[in-house]
């Protein structure tokens, strides 16, 4: 009945169905808190934690949750873990917590997490759900760090706080402002789209060539 292997469940979220770059989910944090790599990492870490815990809990309890109230139950579970993540970050990483501010609490409404619970964890085993959460979480991290790196390098001339260029570098302030988030996402999606298109164009041409060569 199942057509995917455990490996596929894990890999899928990382690239082929990357939550941000392909599915366009969780764009709010991807745009809002990626003005530095450190913030992107803290946000991904918190989201990763919330998603993994919620996936395990929901796939464990899926039999007890009546179909009619499943969304409320998922939100309740997710909100609980977000509150925990909020308190833990505040205690152990106060600097990042200050930077991320309200966006930690807004993980609750990250549709990527709810989406995974509804479409995967509620129908699959605990192990598969955990793999799926890990994969999606890593995919989310990759996307955020990619954006954070791009914006931090151009916007402040540093990477993870280490200055990259000489003192004469004039930072592109716009890249760390909200507008820079949209620009960065746009360029990354453009590059990805161009890459996909390129691959598509190439594939049939190759066939034609091989046909010509064989004839």
């Amino acid at each position, binding site marked *: 009945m199942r057509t995917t292997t455990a490996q596929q469940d894990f890999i899928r979220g990382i690239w082929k169905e990357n939550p941000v770059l392909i599915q366009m989910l969780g764009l709010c944090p991807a745009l809002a808190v990626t003005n530095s790599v450190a913030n992107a990492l803290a946000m991904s870490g918190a989201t990763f934690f919330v998603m993994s815990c919620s996936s395990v809990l929901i796939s464990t309890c899926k039999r007890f*949750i*009546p179909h009619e109230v499943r969304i409320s139950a998922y939100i309740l579970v997710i909100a609980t873990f977000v509150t925990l993540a909020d*308190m833990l970050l505040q205690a152990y990483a106060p600097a990042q917590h200050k930077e991320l501010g309200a966006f930690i609490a807004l993980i609750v409404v990250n549709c990527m997490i709810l989406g995974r619970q509804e479409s995967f964890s509620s129908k699959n085993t605990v192990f598969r759900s955990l793999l799926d959460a890990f994969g999606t979480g890593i995919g989310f991290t990759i996307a955020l760090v990619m954006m954070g790196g791009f914006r931090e390098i151009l916007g402040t001339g540093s990477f993870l706080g280490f200055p990259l260029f000489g003192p004469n570098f004039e930072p592109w302030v716009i890249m760390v402002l909200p507008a820079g988030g949209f620009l960065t996402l746009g360029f990354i999606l453009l590059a990805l789209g161009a890459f996909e298109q390129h691959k598509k164009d190439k594939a049939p041409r190759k066939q034609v060539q091989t046909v010509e060569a064989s004839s």
Partner: protein
Amino acid sequence: MSQDNNSNGNRIDVDIQVENSDTAAAQDAPAPEEVSTFRLVATLAVAGVLAGLLIVLVNLHTKPIIDKYKAEQLQLAVYEVLPGVERYDTYYLVNDTLSLALPAGAKESEFKRVYVGRNSEGQATGVAISRGESGFQDVIMVIFGYDPIGGTLSGMKILDSKETPGLGDKIFKDMNFVDQFFKGPETPLLGVKTGAGKGQPNEIDMITGATISSKAVIGIINHALEEWKPILDKGIPEAPAVAESAEVAQ
């Protein structure tokens, strides 16, 4: 359920098919009978209680750490804006006078307060005051040191702000701006455009590109002094224990 995300192109199609076969199988297994309202409510109630318990447990663990960190940050800030003080006492504003003790049964968080810094002889040499007001984006929390005798500032630190990165955040990242508050400017402060000052002792050069944020900082300090100066002018009550000859600002 999952069909509505077909706008994402062919990549998701595979997944949708898998999900459909799963939902079909899941619907076959339990007969589609009505679940009682009681069970719906009970499930959510139980889940809510468990969630609440979990949050309380973690909060018990993290609250002391968070409070300790906040207290440390505040302490650091007080010593930073009052250079040269040995220790400081927290005075609360009770019935328009400064008092070290709170009325019995009162909550600490309900009272406004100042931090009075004392030198090694126990003399009050400066007062640290914190205040928050709207900046460009959100409330800016400022703590500053004030010398009630000379009427000058001894330092300023931004405790909390969400000002625009790269522009408004210069109010704490641009040392040329911050240092001006440590050079003992007279009060009330007057914000001027860089280079347009007339050399008055109460002028602060504002940051180009962050006019609103720098104006806000200057405004916060002036408003705080307007509020506290009459109270401080009445005199700071003597410090307990250590200070015998505590000479107090009049």
